[in-house]
């Protein structure tokens, strides 16, 4: 009896330990909500003209379905949209000839400019989409950095890019004007939140747990069929 009680007590102690450790790790994984101190970057404004060509395009110019995406790398819903919808649509239809995807970097917060500049620097080496996916996927590892460029250079290395050229680009903010033009274009359309999606020039509302994948896919297919 005593042994049974002892083993029963030991069992519940084990459960308590698992719950305590598991709970602690889950909370710890959430991280700190405080905004990080980042390297200062210029904000939008000034004499930058709204420029539709400031977007980064995938797919042919004469594609029947044109999707425009305005997003911010620190925006959680933008990350979900990219992971669950955008990235998959580009994978499935990007080379089909039926769809043209134009991505506009639309930084809403001061801390969002650094990753946008990094994405444009990656574009110079033909790795915009890969860098975009990495920036979203690893947001929690760079958003707390005082100088996230160091992380971005690591990502460039992971993507097989010329890390020195990339580092020079991000540290010198060489693509700032491109991001400013992209932002200005979105502002000229009256955009004030992200993600904002346009389908063939019309605003498209993202709905459903798939972040609009199903609906956008239907429209792509319909456009390709000439409907």
């Amino acid at each position, binding site marked *: 009896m005593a042994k049974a009680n002892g083993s029963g007590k030991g*069992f519940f102690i084990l459960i308590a330990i*698992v*719950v305590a450790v598991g709970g602690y*790790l*889950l909370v710890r994984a959430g991280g700190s909500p405080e905004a990080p101190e980042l390297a200062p970057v210029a904000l939008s404004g000034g004499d930058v003209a709204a420029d539709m060509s400031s977007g980064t395009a995938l797919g042919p110019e004469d594609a029947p379905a044109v999707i425009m995406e305005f997003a911010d790398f620190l925006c959680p819903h933008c990350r979900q949209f990219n*992971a669950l919808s955008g990235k*998959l649509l580009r994978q499935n239809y990007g080379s089909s000839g039926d769809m043209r995807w134009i991505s506009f970097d639309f930084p809403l917060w001061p801390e969002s400019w650094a990753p946008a500049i990094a994405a444009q620097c990656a574009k110079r080496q033909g790795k915009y989409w890969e860098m975009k996916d990495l920036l979203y996927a690893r947001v929690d*590892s760079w*958003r707390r950095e005082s100088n996230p460029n160091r992380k971005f250079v690591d990502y460039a290395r992971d993507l097989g890019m010329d890390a020195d050229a990339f580092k020079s680009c991000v540290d010198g903010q060489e693509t700032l004007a491109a991001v400013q033009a992209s932002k200005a274009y979105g502002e000229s359309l009256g955009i004030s939140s992200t993600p904002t999606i346009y389908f063939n020039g019309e605003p498209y509302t993202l709905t459903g*747990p798939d972040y609009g994948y199903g609906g956008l896919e239907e429209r792509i297919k319909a456009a390709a069929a000439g409907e």
Partner: protein
Amino acid sequence: MSFETRMRGMVLVSLVGLFVAVYLLLYHLGYYGSLVCGSGSCEVVQSSEYARFLGRPVPLWGSLWYGGMLVLAFVGLGPAGGTRWLTSLLAVGATGGLLFSAYLTAIELLVLHAVCTWCVTSAILTVLIFVLATPWRALRPEASPGG
């Protein structure tokens, strides 16, 4: 191994699995920006189309499955321990979980060519639950609560 010992083991393993599944689910829901993955390719796997099943994140189904097995294991420690219906439920649950886990692992290896550390962990836990549930006992004419 006695039935009680197996059920206790299943409680602990299911609890660990539940935390793993909830962690991945919270990542899918956007509460975590990235996964702690070591040398694996967690983000490649978790952001693929195969990370959703019937329109819902796979970790949601995992959380429900681990939660269900946890409940059954606790029930097994009570008066219903060893009963035919419980043994059958454990068999069905454990076998179903093992088959789905095998499917996901095959997808990682053969389609995605990427391995998520947490998925491997969950697969191992699923195998442990399967072994502890001893579903083959449900095929016997009368299920025995003995080890």
